[in-house]
């Protein structure tokens, strides 16, 4: 998903009129806002937002020059939409966003025109979701930047379905964290705080992780930093840092790496874990082996 999101191209939301349709429109001049009710559609260039209700709030600092009721030069149909501008839209109820091939859904959406952001939230049962084809990204709060491809997600839950080029049935990689920042220009997804990566029976934990993508949106590398803990079956490995090579599907632990496997404790300069074959390669290995723990294993003496 992150790769797909990173690939999407969208320009900044340009200033100018935003088209809308709805069942009713309420004008509240004192509150400096208009309220749209019933099957609301908002569109500007390639951005389309729908929902059940919407509130458009006008900037307070801007004032139209007062014009007397007499002596108008323009008819209503010729009137320019201008003089005051909407600084924020709030869309409520079954919010659906479409921009290019990306869609997003939530219960509540706020478009900050000045800040060029769209923030989607939902409920615990129906969190906001961003989709691109079959790829999905959800979280507690999703901030889509409108002037770039960047996406900021609080407590993301990502399934990297298409990011690992695998033969046969691909094993999905699921990532959870407290925070995710997608930086399109750098083809980078930065997960921070309690990062958990799950792939098959392997679970990797780390304080922070960066996912790097190629020009086609394919994941190339996961870089885990600040202390890495890998568990796969009864095997556990730790290290200060780890890099995951998406093509080779190997995880390389460095920085005092250690492997714990049924009582064996191995350390070395680096430890390579092949997640599919579960083969382990320890460079300049040293450690303690407990052969009695492996009695009964196939190939064991």
């Amino acid at each position, binding site marked *: 998903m992150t790769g797909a999101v990173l690939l999407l191209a969208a320009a900044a939301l340009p200033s100018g009129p935003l088209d809308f349709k709805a069942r009713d429109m309420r004008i509240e001049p004192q509150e*400096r806002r208009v309220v749209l009710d019933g099957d609301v559609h908002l569109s500007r260039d390639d951005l389309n937002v729908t929902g059940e209700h919407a509130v458009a709030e006008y900037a307070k600092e801007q004032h139209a020059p*007062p*014009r007397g*009721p007499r002596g108008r030069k323009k008819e209503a149909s010729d*009137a320019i939409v201008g003089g005051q501008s*909407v600084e924020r839209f709030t869309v409520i109820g079954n919010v659906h966003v479409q921009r290019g091939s990306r869609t997003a859904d939530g219960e509540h959406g706020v478009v900050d025109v000045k800040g060029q952001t769209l923030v989607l939230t939902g409920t615990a049962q129906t969190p906001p979701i961003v989709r691109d084809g079959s790829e999905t990204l959800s979280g507690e709060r999703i901030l889509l930047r409108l002037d770039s491809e960047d996406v900021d997600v609080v407590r993301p839950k990502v399934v990297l379905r298409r990011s690992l080029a695998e033969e046969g049935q691909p094993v999905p990689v699921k990532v959870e964290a407290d925070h995710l920042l997608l930086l399109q220009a750098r083809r980078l997804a930065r997960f921070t705080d309690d990062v958990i990566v799950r792939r098959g029976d392997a679970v990797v934990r780390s304080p922070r992780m960066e996912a790097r993508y190629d020009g086609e949106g394919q994941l190339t590398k996961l870089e885990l930093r600040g202390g890495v803990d890998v568990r796969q079956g009864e095997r556990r490995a730790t290290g200060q840092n780890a890099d995951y090579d998406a093509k080779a599907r190997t995880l390389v632990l460095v920085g005092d790496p250690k492997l714990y496997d049924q009582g064996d404790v191995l350390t070395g300069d680096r430890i390579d874990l092949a997640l599919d074959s579960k083969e382990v390669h320890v460079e300049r290995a040293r450690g303690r082996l407990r052969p009695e723990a492996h009695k009964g294993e196939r190939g064991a003496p």
Partner: protein
Amino acid sequence: MALALAAACGNAVSPQISPIFTPADAPDLSLQGVALARLSEGRIVARGTADRLDYQRAGARLQASRGGGVIQPEPGSRLAALGSVRFVADRVDGEIANRKGVASGAVRVDAERGDVARTERVYYDGDFLRSDTRVAAAGPGYRVEGSGLLARTDGSVIQLTDGVKGQLQMESRP
């Protein structure tokens, strides 16, 4: 006299001159080129003009052609944000006692703030204004068309209804 006699004798003689009579709905008062003002506590709260204004005492009915008016909202009222509000219509029919009326024909409302609304017919009923004809409105930062209108005269509700579409300005023009 000959005609009167013929009628008295029952002869079927067609009258040569129609009698002059007053229609039942004829106004009790008809004014041309009218200007009026409504005062409240020494302050002009509304002014109006009309090319012609007919008034009937029965039912306190009022008819105005090419009528218009300007309302000065009370400071602090919900309408005050719009500034003074001017309205014109080709024809205005009203029942003053019942607080009912209808304005029709090129009905147009202009607010000092810059809002403009046009429609073909607006009903006035107590505290409400309603329209069931297409309404086009524009103002600072918006332009909208709707199939109907519902508004309260105190400005607490101004709503275009039954399907609206338009534009909202997202940034001030330079």
